């Protein structure tokens, strides 16, 4: 029942298959060719999207910080990333002396490749996905580890102490934040009864963010940290370790870390929409797959915009704060949330409205008790040492003390 108007991309895919079969090729070869072409198209599209994302990010970043952003090349500066790309393509690769060549060159490739790999399992619409892998979530987590490896290799291979420091921080941060992310991802899997992303989307008659707001929040925070963006950009802190793991890179190798970064920011918004906001679900999406794609893009853009606002607003954490936030807050919180949600959802009757109300109540209780605990912890801390800075100007109601003039 595919027609060109309701599902243009699914229509194209079926048409492509029928063309291949028309050439009387063996069925295995047809599938193989279709897969190669499909994978190539999806990967290329994701990289082309980066060109647009760079513009979006710089423009929004400019507006947030009261600047104009790119506005010279093309209308609204739209062609600016293309100009940047052409320039970066013709730059010299400077390889530092004594670099570990294999790790040094593999770093940027893995950093981009790992992000593109996530796209293989994301369902963009009912018929529109690379592969409906039944262990989709495990695959996403595993592939995320490859990105971490790329950053560590880059820092290690550069033969530079600042880069090595960046790599150490990457180990501490990226590994740590994987724990609450993995634990909070248990909840969508639990509700849907499957790790396939398409099944998870299909199970969201009520978006999972309503059933598990705290898990969604934990996932959002930890995926920002996985992305290594402000406020979690310690691994590339310019003011502390010049630039972190990418300090020795130049030209396109340097650029690819940022391609990976920009694409990852969009990808986590995409994953959040798929896992917690209902993906392509929406009125009329079942009969018109293209509508589902539009819904998903609207949700993703909203989450992406939120991520950008966070990035351009918040200052950077200190490393001990970053680790404490993870191990002392997010990990225990995610463990508690998962266990309570599991028990309560099992006890609640299978009526969807009962579940919604009960689970929302549980989340509210967890949140309130968290606040109470945090407040007690802060009250029990020794008071901060205060420093009496010399005041430049006396306050309004304070009598101005004249220095005593020595008697003549």
């Amino acid at each position, binding site marked *: 029942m595919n027609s060109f108007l309701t599902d243009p991309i699914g229509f194209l895919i079926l048409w492509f298959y029928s063309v291949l079969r028309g050439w009387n090729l063996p069925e295995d070869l047809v599938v193989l060719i279709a897969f190669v072409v499909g994978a190539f198209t999806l990967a290329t599209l994701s990289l082309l999207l980066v060109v647009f994302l760079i513009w979006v990010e710089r423009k929004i970043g400019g507006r947030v910080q009261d600047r104009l952003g790119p506005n010279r090349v093309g209308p609204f500066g739209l062609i600016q990333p293309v100009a940047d790309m052409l320039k970066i393509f013709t730059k010299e690769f400077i*390889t530092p002396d004594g670099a570990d060549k294999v790790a040094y060159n593999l770093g940027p490739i893995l950093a981009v490749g790992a992000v593109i790999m996530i796209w293989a399992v994301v369902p963009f619409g009912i018929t529109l996905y690379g592969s409906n892998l039944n262990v989709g979530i495990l*695959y996403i987590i595993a592939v995320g580890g490859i990105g971490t490896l790329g950053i560590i290799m880059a820092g290690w291979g550069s033969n530079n102490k600042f880069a090595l420091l960046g790599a150490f921080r990457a180990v501490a941060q990226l590994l740590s934040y994987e724990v609450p992310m993995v*634990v909070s991802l248990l909840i969508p899997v639990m509700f849907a009864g499957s790790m396939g992303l398409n099944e998870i989307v299909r199970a969201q008659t009520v978006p999972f963010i309503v059933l598990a707001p705290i898990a969604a929040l934990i996932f959002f925070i930890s995926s920002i940290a996985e992305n290594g963006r402000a406020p979690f950009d310690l691994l590339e802190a310019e003011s502390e370790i010049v630039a972190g793991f990418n*300090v020795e890179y130049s030209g396109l190798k340097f650029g690819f870390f940022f391609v990976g970064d920009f694409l990852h920011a969009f990808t986590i918004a995409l994953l959040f929409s798929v896992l917690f906001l209902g993906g392509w679900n929406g009125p009329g999406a079942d009969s018109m797959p293209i509508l589902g794609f539009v819904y998903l893009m609207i949700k993703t853009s909203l989450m992406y915009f939120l991520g950008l606002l966070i990035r351009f607003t918040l200052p950077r954490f200190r490393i001990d704060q970053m680790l404490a936030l993870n191990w002392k807050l997010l990990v225990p919180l995610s463990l508690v949330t998962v266990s309570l949600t599991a028990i309560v959802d099992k006890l609640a009757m299978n009526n969807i409205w009962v579940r919604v109300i009960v689970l929302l109540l549980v989340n509210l209780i967890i949140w309130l008790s968290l606040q109470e605990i945090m407040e007690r912890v802060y009250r029990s801390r020794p008071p901060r040492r205060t420093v009496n800075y010399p005041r430049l100007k006396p306050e309004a109601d304070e009598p101005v003390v004249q220095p005593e003039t020595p008697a003549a």
Partner: protein
Amino acid sequence: MQNDLLYIGIFMLIALFIPGIAIVIAGVLGPKRPAPIKNAAYECGIETVGETWVQFKAQYYIYALIFLVFDVETIFLYPWAIAYNAVGIWAVLEAVLFIFILAGGLGYAWRKGALEWQ
């Protein structure tokens, strides 16, 4: 299932191939004029002292160890999460017990001061 994995395999190769080929092309297009000063390690204009690959803080190892414990053990929770709709309340309680053992490990590490950044 096999087809899905085939697609994933092809996709992973292509995802690595595209950036790789782009870097090769850029390497051909760009100039190549290495110089000793240009190739020196960038440390704000100061000549680098000693080995780069030095020993580093043991603290990082501790975080990596705690991570390893958690990551391996949460993988055990995924099969349970998939079967969640099919199992009874007791299986859920057992999984919660397992999570509490995990939390106990975290509490132990916390108590021992492994989570303090020194």
